[in-house]
């Protein structure tokens, strides 16, 4: 979550005529977000603690370049009240909400209490950070399994574990707490009742520093793998006008309670019976913000900057004219054909789809290194159209045009998804994708005869390992190493049929 969002924010700055400053760790010296910036300052070595999580070094960088605004992006310090406070102490304008709002919503247990007070329905769960599994056992007994253990400081599926029975509770607690510690520097977790087959529906809210607050429609984010969103769309196929009205006013009420004055997202769980529960509020720009931008015709990244500069919202609820539909696919450097194992490396080829309805928000270019040190998101493919069917038609075309070599990605997952009848019918929920992936092999299709001809022709004429293909061999060797880890080497003929 360094490159892609930095590039997005820099584009918003350029559009507004604002100069840009990139910060980078040694792993990112030649990354796209650095080479497109007007200024760039080194923070430190690759480990986040010494670079992207180091508040003093970031403030130093701003001071050195005379920056006036600091945009936290998402991930890292995006939801750190301390960072927001440190910025204002250093007389820098933090592009985000007030520290108090971040604090109130940041501690998930506090925010749940706040929402109950504000009359926004919440999922049954514990209200204080748990120090050991025992504290959760009691709640689990009365609420009943399955329960979900979540990081108090969390987000993005990190430090989250489903627990189905008493036996697994302590191991689940340990694993979740460990991940939370690793990801957020805070190992405290809490528990929630796990609703079965809910949808994840969230509302985009925008507030300014003059008391205006507007809800900019909802997003459907039920397509998740291990609690990590992978496909998002706007609007939600499950939300009609009446439900939308109730969702949006609940979201505005949530924003009001903390005097929210930036772009933020209120997440809800939507039960099959149409009832919904407050999940959490993300006090930052969301990865999936582009689907809202394309359908509602707003520029959330630019709006967020204008708000930080003290401007009033550029629109009221009545000005907004939503039109059509949009779907986003998150491209991760994870090998969808082999259990989504991380796939760091060098992007040897990158060919992005273009044409009507297509928007590419990526943080890489051909030659970019994808380091092991950070989140594996490469970027997003966002497609818009007149209605969901047109979007799916354009999306499958765009996915067929999308070429990334050198690192394995989640493209094979999306290519299979867009052809799936249940996906096309929008008949899914937050656990749907994990079940769907379950049995499936997302491996490459076996060559048809004319495809074998082309391959044989290339090899025959260019020779065994043509210079031009050499750039790919790195990835190929990595791939075969992976294969060996997954199966004994004495089945060579199965090597390329996972």
């Amino acid at each position: 979550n360094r490159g892609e969002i930095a590039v997005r924010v820099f584009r918003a700055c350029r559009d507004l005529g604002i100069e840009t400053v990139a910060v980078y760790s040694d792993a990112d010296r030649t990354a796209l977000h650095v080479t497109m910036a007007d200024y760039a300052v080194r923070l430190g070595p690759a480990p986040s603690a010494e670079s992207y999580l180091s508040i003093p070094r970031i403030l130093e960088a701003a001071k050195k370049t005379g920056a006036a605004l600091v945009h936290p992006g998402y991930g890292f310090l995006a939801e750190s009240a301390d960072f927001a406070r440190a910025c204002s102490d250093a007389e820098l304008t933090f592009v985000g909400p007030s520290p108090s709002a971040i604090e109130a919503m940041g501690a998930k247990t506090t925010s749940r209490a706040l929402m109950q007070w504000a009359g926004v329905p919440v999922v049954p769960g514990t209200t204080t950070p748990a120090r050991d599994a025992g504290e959760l056992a009691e709640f689990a007994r009365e609420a009943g399994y399955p329960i979900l253990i979540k990081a108090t400081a969390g987000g993005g599926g990190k430090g989250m574990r489903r627990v189905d029975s008493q036996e697994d509770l302590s191991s689940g607690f340990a694993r979740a707490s460990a991940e939370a510690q690793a990801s957020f520097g805070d190992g405290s977790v809490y528990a929630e009742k796990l609703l079965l087959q809910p949808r994840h529906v969230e509302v985009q809210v925008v507030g300014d520093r003059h008391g205006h607050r507007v809800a900019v429609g909802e997003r459907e984010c039920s397509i998740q793998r291990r609690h990590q969103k992978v496909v998002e769309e706007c609007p939600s196929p499950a939300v009609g006008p009446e439900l939308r009205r109730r969702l949006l006013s609940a979201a505005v009420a949530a924003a009001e309670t903390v005097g929210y004055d930036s772009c933020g997202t209120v997440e809800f769980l939507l039960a099959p019976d149409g009832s919904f529960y407050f999940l959490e509020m993300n006090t930052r720009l969301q990865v999936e913000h582009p689907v809202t931008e394309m359908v509602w015709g707003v520029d959330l990244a630019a709006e967020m900057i204008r708000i930080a500069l003290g401007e009033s919202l550029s629109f009221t609820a009545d000005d907004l004219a939503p039109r059509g539909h949009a779907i986003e696919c998150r491209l991760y450097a994870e090998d969808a054909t082999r259990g989504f194992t991380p796939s760091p490396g060098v992007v040897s080829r990158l060919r992005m789809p273009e044409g009507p309805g297509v928007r590419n928000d990526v943080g890489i270019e051909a030659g970019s290194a994808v380091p092991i040190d950070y989140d594996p998101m490469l970027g997003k493919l966002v497609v818009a159209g007149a209605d969901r069917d047109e979007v799916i038609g354009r999306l499958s075309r765009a996915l067929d045009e999308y070429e990334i070599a050198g690192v394995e990605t989640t493209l094979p997952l999306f290519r299979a998804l867009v052809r799936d009848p249940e996906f096309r019918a929008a008949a899914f929920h937050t656990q749907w994708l994990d079940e769907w992936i379950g049995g499936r092999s997302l491996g490459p299709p076996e060559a048809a005869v004319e495809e074998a001809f082309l391959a044989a022709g290339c090899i025959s004429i260019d020779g065994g390992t043509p210079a031009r293909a050499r750039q790919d061999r790195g990835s190929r060797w990595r791939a075969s190493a992976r294969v060996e880890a997954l199966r004994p080497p004495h089945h060579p003929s199965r090597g390329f049929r996972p």
Partner: protein
Amino acid sequence: MNVRRRFVWRRSGGRAELTVESRDGRSVTFKTEGDEIVADLAELPDGRRSVILPSGRQLTGRAATGPDGRAEAWIGARRIDVELADPLLDLAAESAHAAGGAAEIRAQIPGRVVEVRVAPGDHVAAGATLLVLEAMKMQNEIRADSAGLVARVDCSPGQAVETGAVLVRIESEPVA
């Protein structure tokens, strides 16, 4: 340039011989299982090749072989699964197949070993978790692909491992 090459094309259906012949590297004759066609094979500036078959069917892609004779092939923007073995390597592979042996579980990516769940002498079932490897902030469970006897454990908790490093050795046991 004069090109003539024979391949063993391995697919789920079994094996087939596939030959490629060309005098000029542009007009190419392809043969497999009786089919014989002459196609136009053009090189693109970025090294891909476009083939146009007699039917007019057009495909663009690229392919290269590793030393083991297997192909890494792309058609359009996606990888496809095609095994074009050199007839000699093909035989070698066959005999290896017959031999069987021990499986080395290797690191798929650089990372840090969080937890080791097995010890030498353990019998593991297919799918059993052997160890937990952390990379890119996610904890990944490395599982056994087939049942066997843990012969050696070559890593320990907290250890950083590189791609391809051997983590655990499993001997396949004679089926009872």
